[in-house]
């Protein structure tokens, strides 16, 4: 495995950085073709490493094969792209490699059977940039993801890496750097949407001899994997962004707090830090200036609440990850009581591009109040599962249908769950909502970290709300009463509803508690925990009423409204189910079809397992 390629040189000035970039570019240009094998989470699980090994077992002159981060189009992975032709092959298997080598790498021909075919139109697309999934995207934070080997700092530098840091350290004063970020209008990509430049300004102005910068890489929202992909695909962009933040606020120490469930991201970030240190881009007197900066990678230990900034700081300090009231804000009293800024992975990965290309360039992308781009993890019942980046303000419809290819299996779209457990469920009527901080907040949801789960007509919205309530209740840290007790009571009511035991009065209580939890919880976990319930109540109230009044689950999901039935034509009357039933709910004579007494049935399912003839089902 070719990891941690040593640069074997120190970069002590901008000229040395440029010379090194030119050298790597020349080396890369000497390769007539480059094979880029996606090793994003999806492709990796589908055997991408074996494909890479297969390519490396063929030695062809002037062809390099490398692993890269996520290409984005997870649905049709494992993906292999060949540069400079921009040819992309989908659903590649190790046994396809010999043909790709022979046809494409040796003869320059496209292997038609491995090319992406649009399932609706039947049209084939040999080039990545033509595929509808990619055509409407704008990549800023993900611009290197899938294009470079994440374990090689040289490839990052060859694509103008660390030039923004050079500019921030050598050409700009800290105030000027902050001014550029402020002017760009960049807002926190972790969910809150707080202006990044303002945060930096507060920390710059805070008094203190020791300051810290922290990267929040505790991507805990279920259904979100964009931060994981950035760290695994382009770790140096995060490091560079963090270093720029540090030089702007006057910090000499940084932490990257990565969640424990992402071991590969941890390894790639650690390797990036090691390489940057080796060539002097981290450490003392960076670019010969008086700016020194060191970074430590911290691994989380599995607590969703640690995505909240004060809880995250407590966790770095070795304590239970519990939030504390703000003010004082971390910008004044943060890590170990010192001024600290906490920025999300995607925010930091965007910073180098802003410093390199200027705030005006960034402002020109996206919406007026939310400039730039945002990455979304599009998952669920959607045709094209994947990682996408679009200008802020693109509509939900664009992302779901144009890029996402609509609902899978020709079913009808029902809702988009955006922003994870803190977000909401948006119905079809709101498909034209622009995806920006303010529009989504108005709709009762939030951008969150950017998880976008598409739900089809076969999904029970009440059950989805219960699922999120179950999640937040389990993850509530227990410090403040509204969240600890409120989420528990809300979950109890949700469970009553899906079990068909709730009354209309319960529904009122649910709504009332939801508002109390939202208004009075200590941190964002509690303040946003009721959102999935409140948005489903707002947009899908009829489904709640169907569960409570009509005792029906319109989507046919909730088992409480189903009953086990024995199909007389299949039943042999062996009596096994009768003997297995713990509630003695099954009766019948031997060799005659049996019946289940619905009133006695516990719905445990033991009879289904016992039946050797498949005569019992849930309907």
């Amino acid at each position, binding site marked *: 495995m070719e990891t941690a390629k040593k640069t074997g040189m120190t970069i002590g000035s901008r000229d040395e950085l440029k010379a090194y970039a030119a050298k790597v570019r020349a080396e890369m240009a000497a390769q007539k073709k480059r094979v880029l094998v996606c090793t*994003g*989470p*999806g*492709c*990796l*699980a*589908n055997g991408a490493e074996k494909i890479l090994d297969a390519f490396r077992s063929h030695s062809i002159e002037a062809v390099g094969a490398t692993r890269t981060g996520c290409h984005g189009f*997870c*649905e049709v*992975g494992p993906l292999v792209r060949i540069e400079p032709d921009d040819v992309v092959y989908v659903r590649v298997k190790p046994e396809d490699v010999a043909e790709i080598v022979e046809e494409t790498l040796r003869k320059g021909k496209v292997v038609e059977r491995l090319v992406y075919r649009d399932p609706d139109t039947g049209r084939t697309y040999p080039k990545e940039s033509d595929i509808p999934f990619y055509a409407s995207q704008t990549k800023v934070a993900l611009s290197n993801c899938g294009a470079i080997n994440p374990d090689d700092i040289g490839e990052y530098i060859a694509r103008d890496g660390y030039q923004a840091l050079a500019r921030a350290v050598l050409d700009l004063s800290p105030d000027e750097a902050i001014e550029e970020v402020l002017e760009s209008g960049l807002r926190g990509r972790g969910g809150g949407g707080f202006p990044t430049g303002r945060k930096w300004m507060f920390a710059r102005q805070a008094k203190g001899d020791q300051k810290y910068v922290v990267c929040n890489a505790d*991507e*805990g*929202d*279920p*259904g*979100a*994997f964009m931060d*994981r992909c950035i760290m695994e695909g382009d770790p140096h962009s995060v490091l560079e962004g963090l270093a720029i933040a540090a030089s702007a606020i006057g910090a000499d120490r940084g932490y990257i707090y990565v969640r*424990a*469930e*992402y*071991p590969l991201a941890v390894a790639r970030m650690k390797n990036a830090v090691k390489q940057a240190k080796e060539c002097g881009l981290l450490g003392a007197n960076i670019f010969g200036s008086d700016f020194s900066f060191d970074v430590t990678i*911290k*691994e*989380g*230990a*599995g*607590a*969703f609440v640690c995505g909240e900034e004060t809880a995250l700081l407590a*966790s*770095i*300090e*070795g*304590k*239970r*990850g519990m939030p504390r009231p703000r003010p004082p804000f971390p910008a004044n009293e943060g890590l170990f009581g010192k001024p600290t800024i906490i920025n999300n992975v995607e925010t930091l990965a965007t910073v180098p591009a802003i410093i390199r290309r200027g705030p005006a360039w960034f402002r020109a992308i996206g919406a007026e109040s939310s400039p730039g781009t945002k990455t979304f*993890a599009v*998952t*669920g*019942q959607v045709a094209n*599962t*994947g*990682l996408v980046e679009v200008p802020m303000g693109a509509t939900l419809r664009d992302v779901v249908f144009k890029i996402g290819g609509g609902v899978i299996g020709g079913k009808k779209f029902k809702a988009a*769950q955006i922003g*994870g457990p803190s977000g909401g469920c948006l119905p079809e009527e709101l498909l034209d909502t622009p995806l920006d901080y303010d529009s989504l907040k108005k709709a009762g949801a939030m951008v969150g970290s950017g*998880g976008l*789960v598409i*739900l089809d007509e076969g*999904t029970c919205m009440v059950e*989805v709300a219960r*699922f*999120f309530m179950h*999640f937040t209740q389990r*993850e509530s*840290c227990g410090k403040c009463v509204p969240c600890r007790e409120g989420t528990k009571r809300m979950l109890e009511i949700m469970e009553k509803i899906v079990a068909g035991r709730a009354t209309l009065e319960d529904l009122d209580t649910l709504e009332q508690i939801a508002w109390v939890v939202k208004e009075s919880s200590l941190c964002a976990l509690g303040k946003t925990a009721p959102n999935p319930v409140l948005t489903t109540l707002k947009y899908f109230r009829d489904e709640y009423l169907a569960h409570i009044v009509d005792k029906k689950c319109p989507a046919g999901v909730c088992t409480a409204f189903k009953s086990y039935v024995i199909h007389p034509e299949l039943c042999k009357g062996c009596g096994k189910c009768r003997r297995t039933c713990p509630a003695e709910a099954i009766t019948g004579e031997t060799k005659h079809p049996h019946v289940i007494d619905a009133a006695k049935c516990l719905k445990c399912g033991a009879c289904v*397992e016992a039946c050797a003839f498949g005569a019992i089902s849930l309907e």
Partner: protein
Amino acid sequence: MTPVEVAQRKFERVNEIIEEHGREQSALIPILQEVQAEYRYLPEEILTYIATAMGLSVATVFGVATFYAQFSLEPKGKYVVRVCDGTACHVRHSMPVYNAIRSKLGLKDGKYTTPDMMFTVETVACLGACGVAPAMVINGEVYGKMTPEAACMIIDTLLNRDGDN
């Protein structure tokens, strides 16, 4: 080795880990992580030992060890099967996969580990492998696009592999 020697060796390794990370409280979580990687869980006597060695109260160390989902105060099986129940996996039917594995291994009620200490079966909030939902991970290896049948076949493979040894 006598039981006393075993105990000494146990604490020697813990000492090495503590030495490596230092005695500041900020080192507590990395220390617990490394100790758990060594023993597959956090034995109670070791937690007490760590507290004394780091000059922290036993309550502080237990507080941290019980707060985070990653830490376990009970021994886990040789294979830790974690079925992802993140949103993307949930809506692509992860729970039937989880239930099928549990019922195959005879795990009922509050039990998560098989009596022979071979398997621990848990859910996890999100692995970030939503592209291959529903997903599960066994000792770090990710399996995508699971169905109850496919998951049970993987469990069978592991059972057979160990049966051969």
